């Protein structure tokens, strides 16, 4: 297991996390660190536990053992020893510190683009209507949708919806952004506009943990790539090392070969 080379403590520290759905073990003692400002990409075959891992980080899913800390603070449990869940209020406050962008966008269909972004700012951050509106407009501008502030999600294309999804997450100023296969539901010609937004956030130093099948993007944008297989971390390293065709990791080599065969 490699860890980040930084001396500063990791922003996200996942340690020995295991989880089962009934008889199926989906996470096997997963450990992973993400330093501040780092972009870490998780790749791996479907069913390898990538998405589940991401969902554990903001406690959309609980886990059976291990610990997940953000900025030194245990995410879902008051104390990992007793495994006593945090209160609803505590959990909500913890989740506000992590942003999440979903594969299926999950915009609120009854709210406008600006309204989607403002909801968390108003109700969780306690901002005034005017303040929330101006933050929403700022972020919509950043994702190239300033002119769509008052459009409903149904009036936007998939790529536009996902850019609103990203704006909604980052407007909360999370410590870390979780991206869960955010381009998988998009038509191929819309993928680029979404990835461009992610790239510009990365350049601004946003800490990100993302699951993606966009290998070229993972190679260009990530500080490190984590390869997961069968619920465990099978390899971690800089993109060049992980995506090298001559890797000695048997599973990784098979995955990459299969991936190349189907994508090129």
């Amino acid at each position, binding site marked *: 297991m490699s860890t980040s080379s930084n001396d500063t403590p990791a922003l996200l520290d996942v340690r020995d996390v295991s989880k089962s759905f009934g008889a199926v073990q989906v996470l096997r003692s997963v450990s992973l660190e993400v330093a501040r400002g780092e972009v870490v990409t998780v790749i791996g075959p479907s069913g390898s536990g990538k998405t589940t891992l991401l969902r554990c980080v903001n406690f959309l899913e609980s886990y059976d053992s291990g610990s997940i800390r953000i900025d030194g603070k245990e995410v879902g449990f008051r104390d990992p020893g007793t495994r006593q869940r945090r209160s609803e209020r505590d959990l909500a406050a913890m989740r506000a510190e992590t*942003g999440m962008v979903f594969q299926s966008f999950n915009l*609120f269909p009854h709210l406008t683009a600006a309204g989607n972004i403002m909801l968390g700012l108003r109700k*969780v951050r306690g901002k005034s209507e005017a303040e929330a509106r101006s933050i929403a407009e700022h972020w919509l501008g950043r994702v190239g949708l300033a002119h769509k502030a008052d459009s409903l999600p149904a009036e936007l294309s998939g790529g536009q919806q996902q850019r609103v999804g990203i704006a909604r997450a980052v407007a909360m100023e999370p410590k870390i952004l979780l991206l869960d296969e955010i381009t998988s539901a998009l038509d191929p010609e819309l993928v680029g506009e979404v990835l461009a937004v992610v790239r510009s956030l990365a350049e601004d130093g946003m800490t990100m943990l993302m699951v993606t099948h966009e290998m070229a993007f993972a190679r260009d944008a990530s500080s490190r790539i984590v390869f997961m297989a069968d619920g465990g971390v099978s390899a971690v390293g800089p993109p060049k090392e992980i995506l090298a065709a001559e890797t000695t990791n048997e599973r990784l080599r098979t995955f990459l070969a299969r991936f190349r065969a189907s994508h090129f």
Partner: protein
Amino acid sequence: MLTQIAYALPFLAQGFALTLWVSLLVVVLSLIAGVLLGVGLVYGPAPLRWAVRIFSDTIRGIPILVLMFFVYYGLPAIGLHLPSFWAAVLALTLFKTAQVIEYLRGAVGSIPKGQSEASMAIGLTFRQRLAYVIFPQAFRRFLPPWINGVTDAVKGSALVSLLGITDLMQAINQVIGRTYEAMPLYILGALIYFAVNYALSLASRRLERRFSFIRE
């Protein structure tokens, strides 16, 4: 004949007022209880879910008239004596509550899971998620069956006459008892019930149109 009916109108109006009062009580009380229990059914811990499920299935499986007689004539056996008016309101409310639970479960259940997750992810608490994300979307699906239920409640309130309460139905029967003019009076009664329910469904359609902008 007309003069006789005209003479009876103030009496019928009193009955009508009582019909509206019973309906209003039943509708409001069942809405509050049904939404609370429905939320318990969807989001509650297992024991609560089971309790609500058993309540709802049991109540909906009993004819409303049996339920009403049970509350009025049956409960005194365990020391609970309710005046006929409140026995009727309680029975009708229990019945309506079970229906509201199911409307709520259906409406909330139709909202994709991703909506809850997205609202969790931005840090909304359970109540905030319901108030700002789930209920506004579920409302559009809750409304049509619920308004149907309200019109059922208005019509069903005629059953309270069987406990000797002078609602519109009972008032009509009493006037018929004095005048022997069954046909025109029943037609008048039918028209009054119809007018109330037709107004309700018109209002419902307007409300539905107002919320039709929500598309998934």
